[in-house]
């Protein structure tokens, strides 16, 4: 039965208090450990079509008569359109329509950053559309631009009030502490660079708008477009069957969707609007830069008595301010904590969520500082972390927490230190570093799934979610197959179309599996129950003695064993329809994911080259559905994190606010040659309080601790403290020089 509750809902670490209609979740969790299908490695259901190039991405959608749109963008960091004339563009060959500022959501008169969308043109070819942009007559009024985040905070150019938090008495704890360490850390802007750029194809079919779009949230796009365009939500259909990566940047509709929809309306033709790579790297979102001034204080026995941080999130013109202080508040047991977070509003491209926003940045600062504290205390860094283990989240119990077990498993990797040090030589210094991970990933309601069982014996799971490349289709099929008692290949999962299935959550915030999985299991259980009801009547047995195992209906006494598809033939044209809903999260509990990375790194002390040689990643995310896919997620997160740590930086011209690293020769993501040995371990212990599955999400956790673990390994190898990401040769050589000077200087008093 549906129930109305008032609860806190979390997405990407953002909380809001909402009314929520939830359905009860009567299923008991499965026993821990690998089952018949769940917990066993499974090849992706859709791997073959993706590998063979048959999968149709939004980039591959071609509709009859489709036009191509190009977007006019501001060349100025801050300016207002004084006047604009689209007519010259409309007169050019191939051009069918144009749309100006305020004529579609996202196209605005005020451009808050260089690259802000202003107008768009649709033509027969993209080249024609692009050429037509040059013909648009536009007059700009230049406005004052602020590009420096600290200057912005000083001048009051901020998004909202500073976010302040305090527990205990921070000042007193610091004053009375035996050891106090401080550090300033900076993280850079990094770019998502999904291989498929942001794009949509829009077509009006009578009064219905069909949107094919590369998105992490088909329902979110549906609702946003309906709201902005004043349409009934079911007049908007959003389709995303295959999706070329998002990493947090594709959670909303975007100007490209609205421009395509408006141009399609004006021209009566389908319109495609796809960002170029350069637009992608200018205007499609980024992980914002941060500045973190941190303090940690401890008593001489290693008890952390105070943690403090002053943070600046350099947000850009838009986006939201993620909780950079989050790890500092919840990773360790500490009675006295004070944080303040300023959010600078500067004239740079807007932030969008990027794989654990806030926590990636905050963990870099915090976990480097904790290592510094360990040195000041002359304590083993792993021991210090164990000693300050948090047993609650500021008084709220954890639904489950196996971080201690992660530390136990990290020990054998940590114990390789001597061996690693011994491999150092005159120029290459080797060391080991570690960092802990904490992040959300519990998901939540609502989310729904349907199941359909036919006389052909097939089991279809239908839900209007999207698989953005994380293997969701496969995990859902595994859950349905396990519950139903059939082999994996008997289950097909249909996703990616708001008109063909019930509401499903967004594929972001490590929430897809924990949100969708329980609904899929419930839907499979509902259908299975009905199958057994019919079987009980057919064989004149009590339903409670019947079960489906490995594709056969069996009775407890073993007298009945009939193949499911043989039995289901009885249905004829009848179908068994199951439905399932995601139940509520446990009340009064904090649902979080945990982990530890142990990194072995080598530094060429003469040239500043840093090589990550080995990463041991141990994660506690509840029950693992597909160990193969889970390992891929961890490897992917680690590799992306290595890019963030060593080679990726979005650079901007400080005079004009223009982005300089818009191309992939200048914005350098890791290649296959940069990949270290990655050892991946899971605790695989179901969270007994969380849904009928006990599973949490895994998309984000593996990218959280990697930067700090690398920096700590560098410190171990060389004695050099890096404070800034990326750890370029320039930063590495600076830190080495500083360490040398420190060693040369008289001992501190």
């Amino acid at each position, binding site marked *: 039965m549906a129930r109305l509750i008032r609860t806190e809902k979390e997405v990407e670490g953002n909380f809001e208090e909402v009314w929520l209609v939830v359905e009860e979740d009567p299923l008991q969790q499965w026993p821990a450990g690998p089952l018949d299908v769940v917990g066993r490695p499974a090849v992706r259901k859709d791997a073959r079509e993706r590998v063979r190039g048959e999968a149709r991405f939004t980039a591959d959608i071609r509709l009859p008569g489709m036009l191509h749109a190009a977007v006019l963008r501001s060349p100025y960091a801050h300016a207002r359109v004084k006047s604009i004339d689209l007519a010259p563009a409309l007169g050019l060959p191939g051009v069918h329509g144009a749309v100006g500022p305020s004529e579609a959501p996202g196209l605005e008169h005020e451009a808050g950053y260089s690259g802000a969308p202003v107008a768009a043109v649709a033509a027969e070819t993209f080249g024609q559309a692009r050429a037509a942009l040059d013909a648009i007559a536009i007059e700009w009024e230049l406005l004052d631009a602020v590009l420096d985040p600290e200057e912005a905070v000083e001048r009051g150019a901020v998004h909202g009030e500073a976010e302040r938090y305090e527990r205990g008495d921070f000042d007193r704890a610091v004053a009375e502490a035996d050891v106090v360490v401080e550090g300033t850390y900076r993280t850079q802007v990094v770019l998502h660079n999904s291989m498929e750029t942001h794009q949509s194809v829009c077509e009006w079919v009578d009064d219905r708008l069909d949107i094919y779009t590369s998105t992490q949230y088909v329902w979110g796009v549906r609702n946003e477009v309906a709201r902005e365009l004043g349409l009934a939500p079911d007049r908007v259909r959003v389709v995303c069957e295959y999706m070329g990566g998002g990493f947090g940047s594709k959670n909303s509709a975007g100007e490209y969707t609205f421009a395509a929809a408006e141009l399609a309306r004006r021209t009566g033709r389908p319109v495609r609007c796809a960002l170029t790579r350069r637009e992608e790297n200018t205007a499609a979102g980024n992980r914002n830069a941060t500045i973190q001034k941190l303090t940690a204080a401890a008593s001489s026995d290693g008890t952390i008595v105070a943690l403090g941080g002053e943070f600046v999130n350099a947000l850009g013109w838009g986006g939201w301010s993620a909780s950079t202080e989050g790890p500092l508040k919840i990773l360790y047991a500490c009675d006295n904590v004070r944080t303040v977070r300023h959010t600078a509003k500067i004239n740079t491209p807007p932030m969008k969520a990027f794989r654990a926003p806030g926590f990636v940045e905050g963990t870099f600062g915090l976990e480097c500082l904790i290592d510094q504290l360990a040195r000041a205390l002359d304590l083993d860094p792993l021991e210090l972390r164990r000693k300050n283990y948090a047993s609650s989240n500021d008084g709220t119990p954890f639904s489950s927490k196996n971080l201690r077990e992660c530390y136990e498993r990290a020990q054998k990797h940590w114990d390789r230190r001597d061996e690693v040090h011994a491999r150092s030589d005159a120029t290459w210094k080797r060391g080991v570093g570690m960092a802990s991970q904490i992040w959300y990933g519990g998901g939540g309601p609502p989310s729904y799934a349907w199941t359909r069982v036919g006389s052909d014996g097939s089991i279809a799971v239908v839900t209007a979610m999207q698989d953005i490349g994380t293997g969701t289709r496969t995990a859902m099929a595994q859950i349905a197959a396990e519950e139903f008692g059939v082999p994996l290949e008997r289950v097909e999962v249909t996703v990616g179309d708001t008109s063909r299935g019930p509401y499903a959550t967004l594929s972001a915030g490590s929430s897809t599996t924990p949100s969708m999985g329980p609904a899929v299991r419930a839907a499979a259980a509902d259908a299975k129950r009905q199958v057994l009801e019919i079987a009980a009547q057919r064989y004149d047995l009590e339903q409670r003695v019947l079960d489906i195992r490995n594709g056969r209906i069996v009775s407890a006494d073993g007298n009945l064993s009939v193949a499911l598809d043989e039995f289901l033939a009885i249905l004829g044209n009848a179908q068994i329809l199951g439905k399932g809903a995601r139940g509520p999260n446990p009340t009064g509990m904090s649902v979080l994911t945990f982990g530890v990375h142990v990194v072995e790194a080598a530094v060429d002390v003469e040239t500043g080259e840093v090589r990550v040689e080995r990463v041991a990643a141990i994660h506690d995310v509840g029950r693992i559905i597909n160990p193969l896919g889970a390992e891929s997620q961890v490897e992917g997160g680690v590799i992306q994190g290595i890019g963030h740590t060593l080679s990726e930086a979005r650079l901007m011209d400080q005079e004009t606010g223009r982005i300089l690293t818009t191309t992939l020769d200048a914005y350098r993501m890791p290649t296959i040659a940069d990949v270290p040995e990655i050892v991946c371990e899971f605790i695989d212990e179901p969270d007994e309080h969380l849904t009928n599955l006990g599973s949490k999400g895994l998309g984000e956790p593996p990218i959280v601790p990697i930067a700090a673990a690398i920096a700590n390994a560098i410190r171990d190898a060389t004695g050099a403290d890096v404070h800034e990401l990326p750890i370029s*040769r320039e930063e590495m050589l600076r830190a080495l020089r500083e360490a040398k000077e420190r060693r040369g200087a008289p001992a501190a008093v």
Partner: protein
Amino acid sequence: MELLRPSNLAELDGGLFVHGGTEVVPLLRDGILHAETLVDIRELVPRGIDGGRIGAGTTLAELEASPHIPGALREACRLAASPQLRNMGSLGGNLLQSTRCWYWRLKYPCRLHGGDRCHAAEGEHREHAIFANDFCASAHPSDVAAALLALDARVRTSRRELGLAELYRLPDEADRRTTTLEPGEVILEVEIPPAEASIYLKAMDRKRWSFPQVGVAAARTGGATRIALAGVAPVPWLLAGPEDLDGATPLPRTAWKVEVARALVRRALTEVT
């Protein structure tokens, strides 16, 4: 636009020359190069390795795989660009590639584009030059050119023969070009004198597919060792000796490159002597 494919040099009459296209095609699209006529010169330019003579049409992939060329050149090819680009790009084209300076590639009205200031010098220049950077701070990206400069290679064009160093010129107020190649002139062949030992060392910010932050080539012939650098000046840069690095004039954010160059020069010299 038209595409011509002349089969002998006498047919050449203007137009923009294309070989592998890895540089010309993107620059055309970006409006940095302009042409009504493209001239596919692949049939005109020799391809292949014959002792110390290398056809300018030889691809970097072919050079990378050749046991018959000096180590510095082979390594410079192996570490250049990406595998696909090495399959496409020719030796001659590689020598003529333009800087990766983002201001130049994004068409800022900089000095190389005929403007009156170097945007990099006052802006983001962490990957820019440490030598000869007062007029234009761009860095020359050719690994291969540095290797050939150290190897004291000579270049034969459709009109003349010249030392590799003479192929390049520093841009100045009067002339913003970085090569001495005249319109209509085609590089046909590179000739490398025998070297006893040679090496190319390259600092990159990822292990592959990166233009040189600093590339150092060293080659020993007789008693003499030549050292040449990539990524440190608007043209491939010859050092008289390691002490030349004392004369570097780094920008505020390129001082680190001097340090990297020092280490790589030291290592390269140890390897070849």
